[in-house]
Each structure stands twice: as C-alpha cells, then as structure tokens.
C-alpha cells in the first residue's frame, strides 16, 4: 500500500487474521452473535461498530493527555455512549425496520469489549492517525467474522442471501429444492451462531498452528 507505511498497514491487516478480535482475543462476542441470523443486519452491525471504533479511537487519542487515569473508564463510556446514540438515531431515521430488528443490540455496542479494549490498549498510548487505523482494522476483523457467520446462517437456514432466494423457492420446489433439498431451520436459532463461530475458530487454528492454546 502506497498510502500507508508498512507499520501502519500492519495495524489494519493484523486484526483481520492472526489477531482477530473475535476468534483470537475473544472480545466483543456479546453483541455479535445474536444478530447474525441474516446477512443484512450483520453488515449494518459491522458498519456501526466501524464508525464507533474509528471515531471513538480518534477522540480518545486526542484526549489521552488530559484524561485523569482514575476516571478514564467513565470518560471512555461517555464517548462510546455518545457515538452509539448517534448511530442509533441515524438508524431510526433512515432504516427504521432494521433498527427494530437490531433492537437493544445497537445499544449494546457501548459495552462491546472490543471498543473498550482498544481504547485501553491502544488509543490511550498512541497518536491520532495510528489510533484511527487501529480502530478501523479491528472493526474490520470483527465485521469479517460477523459477515461469515451471517452468510452461512442465512444461506443454510433460510436459503436466501440479503433476502434473495439464491437456492430456489422452497414452496414451489424450484432450484435445489426440486431435488429434495430442505432448509435447516436450526441454523436460524441462536445456538447455531455459537457452533458456527466454534467451527471458524477450528478452521483458523488448524491452518495456523501457532494459535493453538495450551
């Protein structure tokens, strides 16, 4: 990348694979799994988190020398909460049905551990531009997992992607359904999100032996 130095591009690329916030650092699973039954809410969630993390990291990084360390958690919470309110109001104004679907999980971005974790570990100690890149990188790593999980759950669970019937019509028995394929309704239910993430972790760690625990 010409625009970014090698060190900077590492900030973006690392969280995408070997230091992924969800599968390696185990942060931010709370709000991630419940909304991945379909692809569209997963993408909206990923974009929301990217906005909150990018801007939040910049704000915290700008203020890092004037925040007293004793009350830094409260300051961080206020910054995140403000950004999340912006996201929530924008969604309510422009995508009301989607914001109903995501219900409380937009609000729960506030307590998303990735955000607080990056504030603590990176933005409080680094410059503005690097903090911004770090925020975007981690949000991308988070978004990638969300989109993978959402993709498989929607495809296998309802046979659609973004609401389009890619596998044919289950009622009129076209496409794959003509030869006896059935939707696996189980994939839509919450427990399967956990199992899909478990399988992603399995695949990732068997490809990269360094990541294996114990």
């Amino acid at each position, binding site marked *: 990348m010409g625009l970014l130095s090698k060190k900077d591009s590492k900030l973006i690329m690392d969280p995408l694979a070997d230091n992924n916030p969800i599968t390696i650092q185990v942060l931010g699973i709370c709000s991630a799994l419940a909304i991945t039954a379909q692809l569209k809410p997963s993408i909206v969630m990923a974009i929301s988190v990217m906005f909150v993390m990018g801007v939040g990291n910049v704000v915290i990084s700008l203020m890092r020398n004037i925040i007293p360390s004793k009350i830094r958690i409260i300051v961080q919470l206020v910054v995140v909460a403000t950004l999340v309110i912006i996201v929530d109001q924008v969604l309510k104004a422009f995508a009301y049905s989607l914001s109903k679907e995501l219900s409380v999980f937009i609000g729960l971005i506030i307590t998303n551990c990735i955000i607080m974790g990056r504030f603590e570990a990176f933005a409080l100690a680094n410059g503005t531009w690097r903090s911004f890149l770090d925020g975007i990188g981690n949000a991308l790593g988070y978004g990638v997992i969300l989109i993978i999980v959402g993709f498989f759950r929607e495809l296998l669970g309802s046979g659609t992607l973004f609401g389009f019937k890619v596998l044919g019509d289950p009622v009129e028995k076209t496409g794959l359904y003509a030869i006896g394929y059935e939707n696996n309704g189980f994939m839509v239910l919450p427990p399967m999100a*956990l199992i899909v993430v478990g399988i992603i972790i399995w695949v990732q760690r068997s490809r990269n032996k360094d990541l294996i625990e114990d």
Partner: protein
Amino acid sequence: MEHIELFFKSVFVDNMVFAYFLGMCSYLAVSKKVSTAVGLGAAVIFVLAITVPLNWLLDQYLLQEGALTWLGPDFADYDLSFLSFIMFIATIATMVQLVEIIVEKFSPSLYNSLGIFLPLIAVNCAILGGSLFMQSREIETLGLALNYGIASGIGWFLAILAIAAIREKIRYSNVPAPLRGLGITFIITGLMAIGFMSFGGMLTGGEDEATEESKEDTVGMVSTIETTNELTDTDLSLELKEDINK
C-alpha cells in the same frame, strides 16, 4: 403469579447467555475455574439487582415520553428516551463504583471475594442488556423490575457455573488440538443453549400475553406446541360430538 412467571421466564427461557449471548466476554474469560466463576456470577446478580430497578425509576420518571409531567404540565411533551443509553451506562458505572466502596467499607470479606470482579462488571453486556431489555419490554412495576434484575442475574450465574464446571472436567479429555480452549467452549455453549431451548415450552400453559412474548423469543417453537394443543383440543371435541350423536 405474575412474579413467579417473570422469574422463571428470565432464568430459563430468556436466559441472558443462552438466548441473547449477553456477557459473553466475561463468560468466556472467567470460566476457567468454578471458584472464580461463582464470584463473578454473584457479583452480576448483585449489580443487576441494584441497577435494573434504579434504571426503571430513571426510565419512568425522566426518560419516557411524557415522563416529566411530574414537573408540571409544560413538560408533558418531552421525550428524552434518546438519552437512555448514556443515562443507563452512567448509572451502571457509578453504581458499580459506589457498591465497590460501600462493600469495601462494611464487609471486607465480601470485598475480597467480589472486589476484583466489580470493575469488570461495569462493561459487562449483561448488565446494560438487563436495563435495555427492561426498557424495551415495558416492565410495569418497580417490584417486577427488581424481580427481573435478580432473575436474569441468576440465569447468568447458572450459565457461568455450568460452563466452568464443564471446562474443569474437559481438561482431561482428548480434544482436537485446534479446538482446545476457546473453540470447544463455544461449541459446548451452543449445545447447552440447545438444551435450554427446551425450557421454551414451559410457559405455554400461561396467559395469552406470556405465550405471545415467548413466541417471538423462541422463534415459533412455542407456537408449534400451541398448534398441536389446539389440534388435540379439536380432536377431543369432535370425539365428544360423535359420542353425543351416538
């Protein structure tokens, strides 16, 4: 009756961890040993029992549309609900600090067992989630809000206790290397969540309201049970009619 129903619903059917994945971060990070899991679980029950009723009061008398009427008729039109995220999280963060100070002062032994977990809890999704669900489900009275807080805390406690016990045992099993640690924990949690889904049928005998809500929550599971009930009912009545005809 209302209280008992809400209690069991929050502990089992709408379990924080298994139905909504709330508080997963600390659930996965602190579940390696049963003793620490119990400490964190107790702290979660404690904090939820305090913050949910408190946020209920805030919601009722400050944030909801028309909540400010007690200030005078001029304020009846205000709707401050967009502020609820920041108010709730501020309440939670201050309450956690306050609880920490009070417990340290009055019960050092309790502080020693709970103390290290309290700061962790301010950013636990289960706590904020409890308040947000309380708001979105429009819980009616302060008593019910308290009940909801305690019950969802107990649900979370049960979940972390169970997974900690399983993880202590699984250390002696031969798990495939890439799955060790995190991966297998995810899959076990998934299996436990499937188990907990069977509690979804628990409330079908209740009032219509309750079944309607749980219908949404458990994705039609309850409704299928209901339809089968209806079917048997109609079958019975048909048989009865035939009997009468005879």
